[in-house]
């Protein structure tokens, strides 16, 4: 990590925490910290991504502001995380997207929607767009399957490549003499931590949002959002198989597998987004960095838009509005795919990698002193 103000503040705080360790029961950061005595700037990139921003250690800290030590780990770490996203981004010129991420996300979303709408209106006669389509192939009358699959597929592949490069860069930059070979045991442990969101748990109690009381609202909302996202992804995958390999052309009936998965997924995503937005609104601002808020809200807005337009397509698919809603939905999805490596979505990748590193190191070492 570069020697920025945020990284130095985090390092100063962590050196104090390592002498204190009162918060060791809250999350993975403290046990990871306790394996070391001297910290590098790169360690801050690692620990910051290990932090799940539960705010537990802020409210519990006897050295939080106005104490002269001024410890505020969730805030320091949020800023370091943001800087790490930019630093590990690939290709580097696009790292600037993290500077004003809210604006970038909004702009990309607007562009993507315009692009799809333009493409649709230029390639298809308005008459086709605004006519209700019924029966097999209705959607593809508006946007052909080939166009849809190739644009989405190419974007997604590029984004996955960019995310992978980022993950590898993160791993190389933060590996230390403590890190050893990745074992199955560590992978299993990290996977469990990710899937259960163990550390949005503060030792089973939850996060501190509005005040020092514990709440599982954020964990539950995140589960709903991530689960919903997975269901929608599954819906799309199943539909692709139906359509392309089994020759059952969309749209499908209300009780078909893709529609059920997509409906549940969409509702779940909306619930999750709403829950996370609510938590954001009630959270005590003291441990929150304003620098990250734009990107946070942008990703939530994007996911919410994806879910709402997706359900919109479903609800309006037999009406003349389907064409436009469909184009909107595809625009949002395109923006989402484009932005995967250049927005808050990357937190999942780096946090996953950090959890894996923590699992590897915890198996190999004991706390110092």
């Amino acid at each position, binding site marked *: 990590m570069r020697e920025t103000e945020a990284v130095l503040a985090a390092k100063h705080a962590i050196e104090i925490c390592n002498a204190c360790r*009162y918060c*060791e*029961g809250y999350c993975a950061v403290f046990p990871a910290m306790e394996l070391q005595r001297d910290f590098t700037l790169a360690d801050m990139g690692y620990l910051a991504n290990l932090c799940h921003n539960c705010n537990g250690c802020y409210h*519990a800290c006897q050295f939080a*502001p106005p104490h002269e030590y001024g410890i505020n780990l969730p805030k320091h770490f949020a800023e370091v995380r943001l800087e790490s996203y930019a630093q590990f981004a690939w290709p580097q010129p696009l790292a600037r997207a993290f500077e004003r991420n809210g604006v970038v996300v909004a702009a990309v979303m607007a562009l993507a929607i315009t692009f799809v709408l333009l493409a649709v209106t230029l390639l298809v006669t308005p008459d086709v767009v605004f006519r209700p389509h019924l029966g097999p192939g209705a959607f593809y009358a508006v946007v052909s399957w080939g166009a849809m699959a190739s644009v989405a597929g190419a974007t997604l592949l590029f984004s996955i490549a960019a995310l992978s490069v980022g993950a590898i860069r993160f791993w190389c930059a933060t590996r230390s003499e403590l890190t050893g070979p990745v074992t199955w045991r560590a992978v299993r442990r990290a996977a469990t931590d990710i899937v259960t969101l163990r550390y949005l748990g503060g030792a089973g109690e939850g996060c501190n949002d509005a005040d020092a009381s514990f709440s599982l609202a954020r964990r539950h909302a995140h589960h709903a959002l991530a689960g919903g996202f997975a269901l929608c992804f599954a819906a799309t995958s199943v539909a692709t198989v139906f359509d392309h390999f089994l020759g059952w052309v969309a749209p499908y009936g209300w009780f078909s597998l893709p529609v059920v998965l997509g409906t549940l997924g969409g509702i779940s995503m909306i619930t999750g987004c709403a829950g996370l937005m609510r938590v954001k609104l009630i959270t005590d601002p003291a441990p929150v960095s304003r620098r990250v808020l734009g990107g946070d809200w942008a990703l939530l807005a994007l996911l919410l838009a994806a879910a709402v337009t997706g359900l919109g397509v479903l609800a309006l698919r037999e009406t003349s509005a389907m064409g436009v809603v469909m184009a909107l939905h595809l625009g949002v999805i395109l923006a989402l795919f484009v932005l995967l490596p250049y927005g808050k979505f990357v937190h999942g990748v780096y946090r996953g990698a950090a959890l894996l590193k923590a699992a590897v190191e915890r198996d190999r070492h004991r706390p110092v002193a």
Partner: protein
Amino acid sequence: MIVRDDEPGHNGVMSEIVYDVAVIGGGNAALCAAITAREAGCSVIVLEHAPKAMRGGNSRHTRNLRAMHDAPTSVLTEAYLEDEYWDDLLRVTGGQTDEALARMTIRESQRVIPWMLGHGVRFQPSLTGTLNLSRTNAFFLGGGKALVNAYYLAAARLGIAIRYDSEVLSIDLDDGFARSVTVRSGGADTMIRARTFVASAGGFQANMDMLRASWGEAADNFLIRGTPYAQGTVLNSLLAQGVEAIGDASQFHAVAIDARAPKFDGGIVTRLDCIPFSIVVNRNAQRFYDEGEDVWPKRYAIWGRLVAQQPGQIAWSVFDAKCRALFMPSVYPAYRADTIEGLATQIGLDSAALRQTVDNYNAAVRPGSFNTQVLDDCATEGLAPPKTHWAQRIDTPPYYSYPHRPGITFTYLGVKVDAQARVIMQDGRPAANLFASGEIMAGSILGRGYLAGFGMTIGTVFGRLAGQGAARHARN
């Protein structure tokens, strides 16, 4: 009946409301009393000198509490029975305790953890504690400030009136009967009336004038590990009105902390655990005590006093690269140099004198098998004072040093109480409607020394007793 009286500033007047119970202080002992009294149906007001952000006194710096148990619990391993607990207490106090009160406290400690859990305090699972104390001590998840936060949330939920920035100047006694408290808040003085009062305002360790009275100018070099609000105002007010004192006013618990720590509130992170693996010299570069006398947990509490007795109340530990990783990290970096002379220059000691001290020590070190886990056989021979364990030559650069000053944890002088937490007057009778809990009465049980986690046990046990007693009295 719930009485809420949150409006600030009854300038210089007597408040209209008469609370059932007024609790003075805002740390663990105060909150335990307030919650207990409120749950017994009383209207309760808590008067805390500190602002909200710094509430909770020394309790915000704590990490664990010692509790008796006869079988493993969710937060404690094995068993820790009354007699063993009592033996531990007897050993550290050298007998300066009150057996009946102490045993009552120990037995009551069995009941505190479920009560704490019931009021939102969370503990670490029993096996993860940094210190190997999970048999005797339960560690608070997030430490003492998290505990204090949980109690304040519970208090707010229960409808207890909480006033921050409210310094109690006196508890106004009238022949052993407490009538009101005088509170200074926002520059104005108010009298608050209540039927009963609980004094839980901690010790006087932050009162530099009182420390100077016993220690002279040396006191100016003492650091206070905890809250600056421990001014002893309430304690002095009571002692001046015929309440029986207990404990020696000149005594305090002190450890040798990093000299660069803030004057107040440096808390746990300024502690230095390097002494058993170092030599410790004063500002004349002379050693003054056996650094390896016993394992650190049994010796750390004498070093505050030892350093307090040195010229300028300062000392430096010196060790070499071999020892750097043997103790807990601390906040401030060690001074470091490739030669002893270079180190002496950095820390402002006479380099020839430090060289001489190190040479004498090195020459006296006898070979042995170094082992940090036991009282090993690495000792000096023919050196005064000796180093009787973990003595290794200081010969592997880089060399390191930490500066140490006395860091005061708490004072022993307090008010005497009985087994119902009632404050005892000089004539031996309990005051009618005045109770005390926590540091302000801890001297009744802990006249000397310290047992890790016992401060919070005393505060919780007596806080609950005081709350029960106050409620009983207020309702009659």
